[in-house]
């Protein structure tokens, strides 16, 4: 790739600094796997059929990490989207997606299947 050509005499300091800073940005705050608190991760599985979530209402414990598995039984792809949860995730047709949620405060959080918003909607209730 051409960009490396900037590593010519005169720019190495900026180059190294740039690379170092951005690598630190990318990696510096990554916690080692598995994430802390994974042991208490609550697991929930729902499915998507005929562009509808089943169940559409999911009750989860508050203040615990959630591992939400969505099985897409439709042949068409879908995009799981929840603005309040800050999640956007593509699910392939006949595919599965794992959505990890940080411990939630009590309350309800709406989500939709973005490609079929009319029918594919649901709520996560943390209590």
């Amino acid at each position, binding site marked *: *790739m*051409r*960009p490396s*050509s*900037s590593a*010519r*005499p*005169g*720019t190495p*300091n*900026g180059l190294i*600094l*740039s690379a170092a*800073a*951005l690598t630190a*940005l*990318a990696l510096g*705050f*990554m*916690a080692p*796997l598995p*994430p*802390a*608190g*994974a042991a208490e991760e609550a697991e929930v599985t729902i499915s998507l059929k005929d562009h509808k979530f089943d169940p559409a209402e999911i009750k989860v414990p508050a203040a615990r*990490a959630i591992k939400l598995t969505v099985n897409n039984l439709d*042949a*068409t*792809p*879908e*995009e799981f989207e929840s*603005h*309040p949860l*800050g*999640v956007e*995730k*593509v*699910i*392939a*047709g*006949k*595919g*599965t*997606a*794992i*959505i*990890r949620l*940080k411990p939630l405060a009590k309350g309800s959080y709406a989500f939709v299947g*973005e*490609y079929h*918003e*009319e029918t594919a909607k649901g709520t996560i209730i943390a209590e």
Partner: protein
Amino acid sequence: MLAALIIVFREVLEAGLIIGVVLAASRGVEGRGRAVTLGVLAGLAGSVLVALFAAEISQAFAGRGQEIFNAAVLFLAVIMLTWHVVWMANHAREMTARLKQLGHAVAAGQESVLVLGIAVGAAVMREGSEVVLFLTGILMQGASNAAALAIGSAGGLLLGAAVSAVVYTGLMVVPLRRVFTVTGVLVTLLAAGLAAEAVRQLSNAGLINVLDGTLWDTSWLLGEDTWPGRVLHVLIGYMDRPNGIEVLAYVLTIATIFLLAQRVRQRPVGEKAKLHSVTRSARPSGVTDRDAA
């Protein structure tokens, strides 16, 4: 039809805004049209590939593949945009002078254009794959309204292109002596927003577990899911419910770009001359090097 238009437009908005800014930021550099076009085409090809392997990507890394992939693509764009701003900090004055003098595109700055092309490709690939998946879904359903959905989708794509044009035209109004300062700031904020988004992806995947509490909530004032919110989210990285690590990534990116640009600007004259001697070969042979040195 309208639903399809909105969905597709939502997805292409980000790429549209980025392309508009990038075109303005590379004003007057020869070959920028080609670089951006190639970036878009490569991004589209990438989109199809990503859509094809959506299931595999998703399953990788214990279901974290999609987030890791998105974050990697975003960081690539951030690095390319950073590169551009730093390069411009070093060459903006010279570029402006030559543009004024010649009044047409100059051959210098091609590598700066190349990194912008890569940034465009990354942006197109990220959102493009979602459009491809959406369209695949429409085709597979074979619904009676498939034609209407296709028209709606095409409309969404056209609107995305219109956004690019509006942003670009808006930035063309900026006087030449100011344009690289303005676009430098814009590209910096764009990069910071993308870095924050990359970190959000890693945080969502559970790979970052520090500073992940929500810092503030301004969704009542300007929701990220409203159109103005979406535009600001891409352009300046506006977030209505950011967590600590996202804000940190945002600030760190701005600081990094700023410091790198400062460093390049302050470099002693002797070193600058060396740089110019490298770019000399790219100029028409009739142009002397005296003014640059």
